């Protein structure tokens, strides 16, 4: 029971013991602060899982219902481009993990280098994605914008990916648009997360150069690392679901 106002007034002033400048007033120790921030980040990623979960559920249900349409539509995607992008993202996750290690071991030069590499690899991913999107626009595969069923009612026999495809009947072919709706939604939502990540990376590069993360306060780098790996993992699920599982 501390109902004495005199104690109440004095006590906060007496709180001037030594602690690192980044320790916020309401935490007892830096461990508690780092713990809380890391836990919050994991919870946030959980909400992200649920956010993407809605889309994955929709995709899996429709793929089950309209299997032939989804198979034919997936043949229009380029495995080399998708594979290359997967490689870029996995490499960027590696450089990010190295970045976190550099921050923990207080290597400023290494941290900045790793962040820049991650930044470039992320941009590279988005660049390749743009190439893929442009191809879809050229083929009229964007739902809602002059969508054409030509490639599915009359498969291209010269293209090795589609030369064994049977033409789809009208009933099934109209579900192809659904595949592309989901394709753009899922990859688009993923790309939005990439763009946000790259923006934060840009900010972090400047902060890292100023030495903000190599003085023992690595929470921000660690949590951003978690976010980056999460976005990577989303792609690790997207790539097989959209590109790979319907190839023979």
């Amino acid at each position, binding site marked *: 029971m501390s109902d004495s106002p005199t104690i109440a007034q004095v006590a906060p002033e007496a709180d001037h013991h030594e602690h690192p400048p980044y320790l916020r007033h309401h935490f007892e120790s830096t461990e508690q602060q780092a713990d*809380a921030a890391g836990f919050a980040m994991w919870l946030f990623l959980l909400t992200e899982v649920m956010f993407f979960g809605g889309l994955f559920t929709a995709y899996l249900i429709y793929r089950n219902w309209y299997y032939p349409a989804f198979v034919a539509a997936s043949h229009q995607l380029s495995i080399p481009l998708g594979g290359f992008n997967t490689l870029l993202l996995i490499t960027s996750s590696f450089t990010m993990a190295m970045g976190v290690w550099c921050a923990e071991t207080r290597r400023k030069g290494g941290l900045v280098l790793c962040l820049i590499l991650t930044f470039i690899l992320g941009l590279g991913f988005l660049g390749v994605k743009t190439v893929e999107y442009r191809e879809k626009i050229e083929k009229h595969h964007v739902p809602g914008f002059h969508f054409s069923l030509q490639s599915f009612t009359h498969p291209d026999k010269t293209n090795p990916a589609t030369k064994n495809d049977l033409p789809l009947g009208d009933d099934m072919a109209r579900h192809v648009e659904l595949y592309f709706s989901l394709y753009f939604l899922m990859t688009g939502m993923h790309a939005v997360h990439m763009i946000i990540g790259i923006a934060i990376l840009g900010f972090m590069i400047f902060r890292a150069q100023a030495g903000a993360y190599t003085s023992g306060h690595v929470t921000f780098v660690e949590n951003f690392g978690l976010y980056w790996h999460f976005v990577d993992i989303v792609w690790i699920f997207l790539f097989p679901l959209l590109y790979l599982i319907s190839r023979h």
Partner: protein
Amino acid sequence: MSATIVSLPDQTTARIPKVNYLTKENGILSWLLTGDHKRIAILYLISLSFFFFIGGALAGLIRLELLTPQTDLMATDTYNKVFTMHGVIMIFFFLVPSVPATLGNFLIPLMIGAKDLALPKINLLSWYLYMAGGILAIYTMATGGVDTGWTFTTPLSTHYVNTNVLTTGLAAFIAGFSSIFTGLNFIVTIHKMRAPGMTWFRLPLFVWAHYAASILMVLATPVVAIAIVLIALERTIGIGVFDPAKGGDPLLFQHLFWFYSHPAVYIMILPGMGVISETISTFSRKRVFGYTAVAFSSVAIAIFGFFVWAHHMFIMGISNYAVLVFSLLTMLVAVPSAIKIFNWTFTLYKGSITFETPMLYTFGFMGLFTIGGLTGVFLGTSGTDIHLTETYFIVAHFHFVMVGGMLMAFLAGIHFWWPKMTGRMYPEKISQLAAVVTFIGFNFTFFPQFILGTLGMPRRYASYPPEFQILNVFSTAGATILGVGYLLPVLYLTWSLKYGAIAGNNPWQATGLEWQTQSPPLTENFAVMPIMDHEAYDYEWLERQKEIKVTHVG
């Protein structure tokens, strides 16, 4: 546990401490940029009340229109917009954030002995998101409103209406993130910020209830966010996930939407149940009967709540087997809810009960929530549901739970912790009157609607056959009384800010840590870090503390 004698109020410290969270800093910016959970709670309380009165005014319009069988007050289109905006504002901007964002924000750090929530900036961000969403909703209303019903049902919302679906959806989307951040903050705080000795089973049940509600906020809200994104993209650029013409399925939207919106009703009610656990223990001077059962029943409601969403879709063309399974799962939710009600009732048994305002609201909650919950069983049973769904029975059912349950709990909580928040007591007599008026008005308003529903009056129509008029007049008359019941607290609580009796630290002689610090509390909550050395609701401990003080002083 023996009942102990009540001594009210605690006048041993009959002055408001000069230094507290309200006086620490001055100026509008010190409020708008604050990281203090208590100030953010006050910001929420003011803005929530504002939205409640907008939603309430819309409800008043609905009841006025329904006074007569004809559509005479407004056109049917306008009526559609009015009930939609009533639903959107009341659900997304009042009920979902009501208790968590105000009382939860204010009390969770105090109850667990922390200086603040774990993420103060995120907490402030969540208020700004809430305000952004709210202002967008008001803007929507001012520029023509929306008429899909608060459920944004496809294909109506994607293809057939020409109203502001996009801005309303965006408003709900933004408010959803506000709720996600609140829930996330609570979970982290409860896990990582507890004072020494504050074990999980010494937490007040209010905290347990908020923990369960936070799980729902964090896991369910993102799903409605993506559902709203899909609606927006379908309206703007014409993707076809819910459009049968493009191979999509409108039912998928229902699944995604109710996957959030059913757990959302537990987001709304669980924190209210937390309030009831606190008041019922304090005003019967007994430890809550079956503490562990009540704590786990909150978590059970949260878990079961995820597996019952399709009971909103019994008549929408899901398979009979799905109806069977979801009907059964729906019955399961009744079990933890009943555990709570029975345990609260046993808490009253042989307690020394007093009838202060929070307790009156608590009794109101228990009666009305029980009726609301039991009629929910009617609706969870597929046979009766087919008869009763989309009638006034369902309207009465969820208003009994949300208004009769949740709002009563909210008012109980506001009165109960008002002395802690402001340092002053509310006037007891008039507030007891307000509680009784609210209870009477509520029953007059919504009980006739059960009868209307069983007679077959459909919801969401501006006109009805003349034989239903007498019950509708009852209902509208009751709504007027209810309006008075809600206006009174605003008046006397505002009055009490200046003229209320000084409360002292612990006017209710309650045991929670929040009552062991000054009122209003310091910005840091506690002058010295509290150490929890007793179980929750241990009134004998409180008595011992008093004896210690007496010997110390004397």
